[in-house]
């Protein structure tokens, strides 16, 4: 994959192939998470997991604009980021089950998937905790002159963490190639973001001299277009950006968060799912543009479903790490 070109130039408009790859990736995330939920319900998964369902357009739109050697940092709700950056579902499922075949040999689990091969610096279970890491990766990229860009994904809840402002200030001062991507899905766990977030989110980025834009996070093409532009600008040495993606998580904060009416209405959920679904919206556009007909899209979905089931089966069958591993890799 080469540098994503400026989307406004006709020459570099994503080709049908690219659009379909993105569609496939969104389906992959959706069905991956569906299998995760199923593992939880069947009591096959240790601990909990935070699903990315509903937010697929953000990870896919952005990661499609990245080079394979670009960096990302991810969050507790990280499966979508990992997949969009190129992780293999079977090794991800293995990680979620604590198996040796997992990306972290089972030591990390859902909230810590990391993979140098796809530039994934790691999911992070400390809200906001990866802002320094992403900024540091951008620091390396600049100092080593590699032309890499780092994307720091975070939920709007991380706007509560002072570290974010410390690192935005540093990135702005040093013109580091880092994109701060705020995924505003409206909730910090069980609390609406308006109860935790004063003022204006974009203004926070701008106050630190950072180019700040917002985008409809359910529209993968819009996300991709603005991301490609901001990433390219950062790559050219113009410094960091903040991209606010307005989105929604369809399910609970984690797989165990089933009764949600005390903090949000079923109607709200229903509206997002039916009217703002990123996959449905993208599918409608793809068929409208005659890039694919619904049979072709259905074919993609079936393939993905089968692939996810095979990946789960692989993970379930995979062995746990040897017990002696517990004391390995504490130090390099």
């Amino acid at each position, binding site marked *: 994959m080469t540098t994503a070109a400026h989307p406004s130039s006709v020459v570099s408009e994503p080709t049908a192939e690219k659009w379909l790859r993105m569609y496939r990736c969104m389906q992959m995330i959706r069905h991956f998470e569906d299998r995760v939920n199923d593992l939880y319900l069947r009591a096959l998964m240790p601990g909990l997991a935070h699903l990315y369902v509903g937010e697929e357009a953000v990870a896919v739109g952005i990661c499609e604009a990245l080079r394979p050697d670009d960096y990302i940092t991810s969050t507790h709700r990280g499966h979508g980021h990992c997949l969009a950056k190129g992780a293999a579902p079977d090794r991800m499922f293995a990680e979620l089950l604590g198996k040796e075949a997992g990306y972290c040999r089972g030591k990390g689990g859902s909230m810590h998937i990391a993979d140098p091969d796809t530039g994934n610096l790691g999911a992070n279970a*400390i*809200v906001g905790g990866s802002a320094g890491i992403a900024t540091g990766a951008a620091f390396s990229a600049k100092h080593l002159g590699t032309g890499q860009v780092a994307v720091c994904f975070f939920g709007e809840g991380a706007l509560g963490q002072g570290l974010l402002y410390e690192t935005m200030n540093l990135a702005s001062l040093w013109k580091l190639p880092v994109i701060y991507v705020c995924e505003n899905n409206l909730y910090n766990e069980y609390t609406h973001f308006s109860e935790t977030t004063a003022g204006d989110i974009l203004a926070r980025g701008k106050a630190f001299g950072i180019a700040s834009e917002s985008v409809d996070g359910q529209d993968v093409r819009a996300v991709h277009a603005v991301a490609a532009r901001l990433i390219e600008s950062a790559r050219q040495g113009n410094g960091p950006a903040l991209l606010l993606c307005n989105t929604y998580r369809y399910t609970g904060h984690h797989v165990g968060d089933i009764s949600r009416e005390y903090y949000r209405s079923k109607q709200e959920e229903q509206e997002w799912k039916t009217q703002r679904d990123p996959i449905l919206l993208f599918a409608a556009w793809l068929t409208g543009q005659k890039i694919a007909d619904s049979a072709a899209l259905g074919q993609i979905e079936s393939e993905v479903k089968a692939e996810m089931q095979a990946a789960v089966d692989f993970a379930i069958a995979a062995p746990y790490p040897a017990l002696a591993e*517990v004391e390995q890799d504490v130090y390099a």
Partner: protein
Amino acid sequence: MPETAQRELTFAQAVREALAEEMRRDTRVCILGEDVAEAGTPFKVLSGLVEEFGTNRVIDTPISEAGFTGVGVGAAMTGMRPVIDIMFGDFLTLTMDQLVNQAAKIHYMSGGKWKVPMVLRTTLGATRRSAAQHSQSLHAWVSHVPGLKVVMPSTPYDAKGLLKTAIRDENPVVFFEDKMMYKLKGPVPAEDYTIPLGVADVKRAGKDITLVATSSMVQVALGAADLLEKIGIAAEVVDPRTMWPLDEQTLIASAKKTSRVIVMDEGYGRYGVTGELASVISEGAFYSLEAPVKRMGAMHVPIPFSPPLEDLTVPTEQTVFEAARALCGKA
């Protein structure tokens, strides 16, 4: 434990009841933390409190552990009695400056003039499959800091009595709750009671070996004691209940009586709580000891996610039983 104790409450209920009673007693008591109000925390420990006391006293905060801990410090200095809720003990990392450089030192630095009557409640404990950033037991850090008091209840009864005392204390108190213990049941009297800080509790009497255990390790010690009884070893289980102030005398007296000691704590075994407790005992009971005090803590590794690995990292009834048996020469 008083004879009147009839009711059984879970550990979570005991914590909640302590808070509710203190909030009724003193309108200055308020709670600040993430998802503490309608959600009642992810562990549901605070369920129902916002309904009784309203969102003015049970206050949802942004995800700003340093910020709202700092607000707690200032509020405590100026007439409130805040209870700060830090969801996972792992997030203490974010509050250390406010807790250690501010809360702990203000009384002393001001020559005794300002006081910081604040409680910071947080959690500890592994084996919840939460991986390295949600499983730590970091109470050794705050126990190291003069100016803080540190409470580690191991039963519903202790949790309620100690939390009430902590809220009434004029100092910053860090209160650790074991996540895995929230559903543990135990007797809790309905009438008002408090437990002083700095008084250890002998949870089980015995003459052959002393198991000093904190928080989550008390149940493990009691389980090991049952196993030991079967092979004729009478283990005494001593729970210091508060790391600071520390009831040295009770620990030393038990050690002198039994002459063999294991100290157990779920924090990392290195440079942690077990080193202090073992040293206090060695210093105080050296000439009565048949063997060096044995320490059992969490393995010196970040807590792994993978269940079979995670389970290896903390002392269990079985590993304690075996260590105790060996120490008593019955291996």
